[in-house]
């Protein structure tokens, strides 16, 4: 028999940790924005993002993509640590024991509350060892300099770091469709580096996501 009292943990039922009205707080006297755990949050203006792109392009040219990807990896590693601590404390369960669905639900909410846009998972290729993450309304992609290639290098770095930490092995991430190129959403393919090398070449040749995935899985 189910005892309802036993379903409660310390009289509470964990729900949406990242509900934005609860998550984003401020210490007005100190002039700080904080998360509900007291970690510092920052709101950054779009002009700063534009400035970073302009500075990088001027100083590093083509290499700026790699610089952004590596910044993303650094960010993603720390983002993941914070996310893991918050989620595992709140649900009183290690992140590795959570189902993919629950993990993703928390990540989606977190992504939105951080103002990074919307995020979802396309599981169609998971039997072939690839995860496809789709995102919408990325501020970094919207402000990126015009190019013939997908522009979400920062996010690709973040996602590769997040899923590498989660899977416990090194994973790479390649963006195969981009809002800046007129796609309905940004698609990021996550998998082992050696299996994604050919995807990178296909992106360079400007093939679209629907053409890349079957070839990648062939």
């Amino acid at each position: 028999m189910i005892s309802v009292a036993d379903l409660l943990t310390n009289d509470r039922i964990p729900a949406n940790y990242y509900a934005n009205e609860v998550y984003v707080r401020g210490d007005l006297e100190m002039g700080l924005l904080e998360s509900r755990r007291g970690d510092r949050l920052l709101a950054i203006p779009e002009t700063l993002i534009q400035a970073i792109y302009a500075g990088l392009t001027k100083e590093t040219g083509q290499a700026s993509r790699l610089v952004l990807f590596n910044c993303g990896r650094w960010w993603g590693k720390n983002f993941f640590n914070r996310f893991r601590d918050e989620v595992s404390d709140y649900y009183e369960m290690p992140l590795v024991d959570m189902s993919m669905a629950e993990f993703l639900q928390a990540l989606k909410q977190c992504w939105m509350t951080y103002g990074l846009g919307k995020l979802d998972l396309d599981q169609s290729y998971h039997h072939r060892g690839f995860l496809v993450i789709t995102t919408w309304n990325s501020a970094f992609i919207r402000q990126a300099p015009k190019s013939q290639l997908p522009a979400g290098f920062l996010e690709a770095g973040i996602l590769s770091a997040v899923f590498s930490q989660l899977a416990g092995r090194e994973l790479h991430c390649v963006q195969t469709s981009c809002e800046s190129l007129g796609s309905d959403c940004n698609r990021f393919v996550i998998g082992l580096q050696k299996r994604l090398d050919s995807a990178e070449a296909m992106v360079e040749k400007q093939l679209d996501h629907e053409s890349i995935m079957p070839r990648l899985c062939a």
Partner: protein
Amino acid sequence: MQPPFDAIFDEAEHRYLKPDELQEMRQYVFSLKDRVSTYQMIRDRELSLMQQVADQIQYTMPDAELAALERSLKNAMLSLRYCSMGMVLNDPSFVQNRLLGWLSDSMQIHNSSAIDRAVFRLIVQQLAQVLTSQQMELFQPFLNLAQAVLPAPVEEEMLTVAGMF
């Protein structure tokens, strides 16, 4: 349901409240006593009410997985808590913003709509026995919000990242 007052408070520096806004506020304050007593009733009966729902759902759905029943009961308890608070504040957006997006995602992920629907039906039956019709009238609109997000059943398979790579 009356609209929430947030917008009115946000305009404090612009103007004083208009007569119809004051009237709206008076109505809310007038209804607050009933809202709080309804809240208190639900709060005090939460465990016994939900235990009856749990007993009945196990009886009516004996083949359902225990974990699925427990998850649906937890989600229902969450809804009850959020809806009760929403009712005190008379603010549907409190329930919508903080709970419903997350809840409907959660229900879709676990494909539990048959159980969720049955649990909600039982909750409404139980509440009808505990609350007066006037109290039910205050609470029902918020419960309807939660019921409206119960998804249609979908087939989806469970996946773990660790198992993939």
